[in-house]
């Protein structure tokens, strides 16, 4: 369970991790600047298990995989959004950042609410209000990659078979 950090529509990957920090690929270094240009105090306020909740088109823009890695590096348990931009969606799956697409949950969660998520089942619970939401189910093909532990492991397992 964690607290919800609420943001709006079109959170682009330039604000998730500005290009000036793409000089590294280290998760902890990237995490120190996660969402910096959107919410300068996010990194100091966020705790392990917290949830990022945002509107539509989350992660639009640049294909930088540094974006889901930076968010994951802060200890955030996952991102719940009304919709995800497609490259970010793939990058999150590939790098193991849990994401759930669920406009109803986004509408039903306020800043600071206590939230739990089960990304594999696509379930979002607002513990503060007691409401439960069912998000978009991932295609079976994509779930295989998630279950394998990300794309690197998935490719490895295919190579072995």
């Amino acid at each position, binding site marked *: 369970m964690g607290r919800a950090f609420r943001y709006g529509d079109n959170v682009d990957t330039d604000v998730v991790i500005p290009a000036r920090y793409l000089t590294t690929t280290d998760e902890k270094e990237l995490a120190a600047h996660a969402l910096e240009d959107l919410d300068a105090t996010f990194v100091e306020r966020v705790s392990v298990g917290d949830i990022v909740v945002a509107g539509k088109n989350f992660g639009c823009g640049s294909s930088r995989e540094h974006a889901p890695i930076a968010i994951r590096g802060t200890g955030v348990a996952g991102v719940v959004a009304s919709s995800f*931009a497609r490259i970010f969606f793939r990058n999150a799956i590939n790098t193991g950042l849990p994401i759930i697409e669920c406009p109803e949950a986004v509408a039903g969660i306020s800043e600071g609410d206590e939230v739990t998520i089960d990304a594999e089942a696509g379930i979002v619970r607002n513990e503060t209000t007691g409401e439960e939401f069912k998000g978009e189910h991932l295609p079976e093909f*994509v779930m295989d990659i998630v279950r394998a532990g990300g*794309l*690197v492991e998935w490719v490895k397992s295919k*190579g072995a078979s």
Partner: protein
Amino acid sequence: MGSTITQKILARAAGRDEVGAGEIVTCKVDLAMANDVTAPSAADAFRRMGVPDVWDRSKIALVASHFVPAKDIATAKLMTRMRQFAMEYDIEHFFEVGRGGIEHILLPEEALTLPGQVVIGADSHSCTYGALGCFSTGVGSTDLAAVWATGEIWLKVPETMKIVYTGVPGDWVMGKDLILSVIGRIGDDGASYMAMEHTGEGIRHLSMDSRLTLTNMAIEAGAKSGIVPPDETTLDYVRTRQEIMGRPNDFEVLASDDDAHFARVIEVDLNDVEPMIAQPSLPSLSIPVSTVERRKVDQVFIGSCTNARIEDLRMAAHVLGDDRIAPGVRLMVIPATQRVWKQANDEGLLQRFADAGASVSTPTCGACLGAHMGVVGPGEVCVSTSNRNYVGRMGDPTAQVYLANPAVAMAAAVVGEIVHPDEVRNAPTSLDPAVTA
């Protein structure tokens, strides 16, 4: 029911007769590209995948484009990681600083992206290559590493949004104005997960350079890909580049069937499109330049994978004429590739920009993503020919960035304010140097 050009390309690459929108298919890839920002992570992921070698060293392109020339020690190290991977796996198409440029302009010049192909790039603007009639999309580093390992990628077959152009483009109207106009209509996620197919009689009036701008910004509408079905202009360009590069590879020219299914059809009468400008801080906040609030500018940037080809520089030079850059404004001109730089030099354009007081630099993505070579400071106003004006994209989060075509950008540099290019110069009748010389 018939198929779209995108469905046909993906079906062929998946070894199928046909594929339906929404299906997940595994496709063979013809070219897999990464740059100095995405290649280092892709190389790490590739090594972790535990395969002995890349699937095909002749189908991988590595391009030094973003933090080049290296801006500091950290970015020099990123370049070293890419260079080492290129050497270790004997990658055929590795483009060093000074021998390449911005990948989305470079690879078509190199005749490495061809009609009918599936091109995957670890850069969001990889959708650009679709102007040549291929399926092309951007992915992250791990996805790209998987292509290097297997030669394949999983894709959800996209629905297609068809944009039908009629009429003839008016004064100052370039590919940039068409795509800004479309994004203004449909929104920043208006084509989410879709292929944007640009078609209709009006497309014939667009040069290859302008078409590459059209498909370049598909991602700014959330699209998976942009595509222009090949016509004579495409084939002339591709064959010329193949001949020059000595790469006479086969390619396949496809088109959408008349009875193909389109998720949405938009009509654009080119006679109605004016030069556009996207206001801070979303590409969808685009309006005709004739209606934008006049505003003093601090910086003008003419460059990026969107608008730094020869046509763009010729247009900028036309607007500049024999004027000088306005006091209080700095102008950065960054040709997209070494080839464009040399051609602009041969045509005397670079000299003209420099004489006018512009900073003219070696090819790099730098300024577009706020990396270096033109980062904007707090509260500054910038007119840029690039593709994104998101908060903080070009530098400080309080900077205000406007997106426009090179004519509008140069007009701002000459006047020192955002103005319609009519205020500065008469529109050119042609951008062919033989005509304008």
